[in-house]
């Protein structure tokens, strides 16, 4: 079972109190977007073995969304952070770099 830190409640929370929301840091495309861009936004999701960024909602707790940087293969969690950001904060990237030198996820590294 994943046990993640809710950054809003500042406590560890069992997966069963959370709701998983899929890949984080997606950019929304609406009317006027090219078919390919829209398809990408709607359907194409990264499924890496290794570093990944995910959306989670503390649904049985504060109700807030947060983001998690974790390793899908080892289940190591590099950090969790508030959802109100378009890219992972530097502290999270540093934490990942420390454990996974040279990592890359999408346009981040």
């Amino acid at each position, binding site marked *: 079972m994943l*046990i993640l830190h809710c950054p809003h409640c500042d406590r560890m929370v069992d997966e069963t109190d959370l709701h998983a929301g899929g890949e984080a840091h997606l950019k929304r495309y609406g009317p006027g977007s090219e078919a390919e861009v829209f398809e990408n936004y709607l359907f194409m999701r990264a499924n890496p073995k290794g570093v990944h960024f995910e959306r989670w909602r503390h649904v049985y707790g504060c109700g807030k969304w947060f983001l998690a940087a974790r390793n899908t293969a080892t*289940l190591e969690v590099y950090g969790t952070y508030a959802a109100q950001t378009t890219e992972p904060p530097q502290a999270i990237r540093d934490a990942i770099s420390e454990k996974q030198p040279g990592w890359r996820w999408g346009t981040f590294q």
Partner: protein
Amino acid sequence: MRLRTNGRLVAKNRPVHFTFNGKRMQGYAGDTLASALLANDQLLVGRSFKYHRPRGLVAAGAEEPNALVELGRGDRQEPNARVTQVELYDGLAARSQNHWPSLEFDVGVINAKLSRFLPAGFYYKTFTQPRAFWKHVYEPIIRRSAGLGSAPETGDDHTYEHFNVAVDVLVVGGGISGLAAALAAGRAGARVLLIEQTSGWGGRAVVDRPTIEGATAQDWVNATLGELHRMPNVDMRIRTQGAGVFDHGYALAHERLTDHAPKRGGPRQRLWRIRAGQIVTATGAIERPLSFAYNDVPGVLLAGALRDYVVNFGVAVGERTVVVTNNDDAYRTAIALVNAGLEVPAVIDARAAAKGELPDQARAMGIRVITGSAIRAVEGGKRVTGVSVCAQDGTGGQIEAIACDCVAMSGGWSPVVHLWSHCGGKLVWDDAQSLFRPDADRPPLGADGAGFVTAAGTANGHLFTAEAIADGFGAGRKAASASGHTRKPGQAPMGDDLAEAAIEPVWMMPAGAPYDLRSKMWLDYQNDVKVSDVQLAAQEGFQSVEHAKRYTTLGMATDQGKLSNINGLAILSNALGEAIPQVGTTTFRPPYTPLPLAAIAGVARDELFQPIRKTPVYDWHENNDADFEPVGHWRRPYAYLLGDETAHDAVKREVNNTRTNVGLLDASTLGKLIVKGPDAGKFLDMMYTNMMSNLAVGKCRYGLMCSENGFLSDDGVVARLDDDTWLCHTTTGGADRIHAHMEDWLQCEWWDWQVYVANVTEQFAQFAVVGPKARQLLQDIGGMKLAKDDLPFMQWAEGQIGGFDVRVFRISFSGELSYEIAVAAGQGAAFWDLLLKHGEPLNVMPYGTEALHVMRAEKGFIMIGDETDGTVIPQDLNLDWAISKKKDDFLGKRGQQRTHMQDPDRWKLVGLETLDGSVLADGAYAVEVGENANGQRNTQGRITSTYYSPTLDKGIAMGLVKRGPDRMGDVISFTKDGGGTVDARIVDPVFYDKDGEKQNV
């Protein structure tokens, strides 16, 4: 038989009575069912799965593969109880399993005669050829023979519970290593949970009695338990098995509370759901059998188990026991037996020499030691009568025969690495000791990327007292420190050992055994897998250990290879000509031993199986013969049955009465979300397909919500409460989902917009007062003005009715004059009663969800979940009027612009009337000529809603039909339940009051 001496765990002054297969027997308090059966010379306890060979006890603990019995009857029946783990109590009734007609005489033995049909992989081979055998041989005989205990047919009347804890250190195993680990962690100040699967502490040490800290092992165990009991930060549980270790330090433990004392109250079992910072697995080791011919005859036991029975319970299996071994430890059994006054005619040692202190002691006691030898074969059928001896390095030429009634075997010890391995801990092959042990460099990794499990003691490959206890203490200290508790725990306890000579790996006896011997050497007693089966699997190309397992069934079923795993893969590796570590082990999966489903369910059964959501008038519904239907977790009345009415009659009456007089609907379950803030209008314009920002205060508007895909997701009436506040009604199932959907977009996309959302669904009871006499009913009660001009259609107002504070919405889902009235939930029942009381002269009747559905279908209103299924866009339902053309953007707008969504061939909503007036089948397809690429009949539409309409006295339906709205008047055919088709005409979906005059009066 029971010995006069020994038996440290049994109280010989406290007899306990029990039955086995109906036969009355006696044991003592402290016995396990296993030891009590042996005390009564009941060696035969079951039959093997495949060949139905007689089977006796082999082990004394959780690894016992044979002795599974059924306990109790009726609501206390339990199949597959392992007798070694069942503590004896007065009145215990056990029955053996997997035999027919009786344990002594079992016709299933015929399977053994058919053994040429049952080789390795027989599931895959034999069940296919010859075809004629299937019906008359395989099905009736083999299937029957492959069973375990029977499933209970009645409910279980025990209670079970869960318990959630978070600890710094979980220590699994209450032997000396586990006790030492708990001691170190406890002294360091960590929160410790120490669990032990048996009913006592000390593990093997209190049987084998090494010296610890200058005293007996038992003295050290007692002193340590005393210290641990005094620590408020340590909880200790016996009869609690570590069942599994999972990601991020989650672990399950299974505590048996009253299995041994069934008359005691309280829950029978407790499932501990543990979040551990660190886990120490001090789970000990399991002795390996040796592979010699007929090693499955009852009376052949593990040497350590035999010692346990003698020392712990004062029970012997036979008078004359031959010990066979490849290591020094088995000599302890020989010594213990002789000390107990029993005969040991020989120790057969496969090694060329036996020079350790234990063999010397044995020899000094007069025990004959035959080195370089092996058992060629065991004699006897339902129990051992003797063994024939041969040279270990030969092909089985008999040297001598020894009469005996028991054989104690030891192939060495395998650390119990299950819990270490469950979550990814890796193993390393220890060549010197011939065992797999945890690789400390590759532990299971936790959330921080560091190891969170430490193996300790024998479970870590330290088979000797001194290292085992020191290793346990060290593991406890390390675990405490890793969880932030660094207080110094003092010195590790010191243990003493006799010097033992090295084990020699022996995977087969004799080393050059021919096929006739190999085909009688059992590796897996439970699944009847022999040395020859594994060799055949290798020969047939099953080189992966995981494949060989499934092909041969080695290590499957309840036993999961606790005894057979290492021996089996050693045989496999020999057959493949590879080293053991290259072949590797199969995957260790939780739980360690099977967990009862009842323990997993815990309290969640019967009434508490799942929450039932009740509206404020649930009790009234229940007291008035509501026929409930589940809607999510809600229970809503489907219809109210009067007298002898069927549900169909009731629905018809409810519809007719509502259309003629006045009906009441409990609509409390509809979702109610308050959306407020300076940006609320802008936000709702994104959420809904239509415009909500321009809705005037006091007015209502029907709105549609779509996913980004463009598919219709929810609908409902939105009311604007004030300048910056909207009330959004959702479907019953949509309240939580749409609330979450709104929060998602507000928190994760438009977090700079100033909007708050609150779910107030349950704050209100909401009732629809529906029908031509609805207004009269409310006016009779008295209160706020509700005339046509006071509260026009699609408006809302606040006021009082009958003294109740209410909010009234003039909306209609039935086509009739209708008021939906919201009142505080705590006054809902009283207000409902008031409506019924004042409505009596008007013939008011409540109606249920089915009447609601019929009336909305008569009006051609769509229902989320009927007309929609996640692939339907609003345009398919002719709801273009509710999709704003003015807005640049809303959720789903771009999705609806995709080519396929614009396809004129899309199936679109129409009404359907059968030509014969019958009711179409729900979900029926409209057939078209020709077939598709898969040879299936082409279709051109399907039914989404279909009812008998009491108002029109005929079947009406809605459906999605290819280009439907362009084909008004066409007749198409729909499939019928039971075959054939029925013709229906495409018509307007509004069957009733097309101009909407009734709802607008």
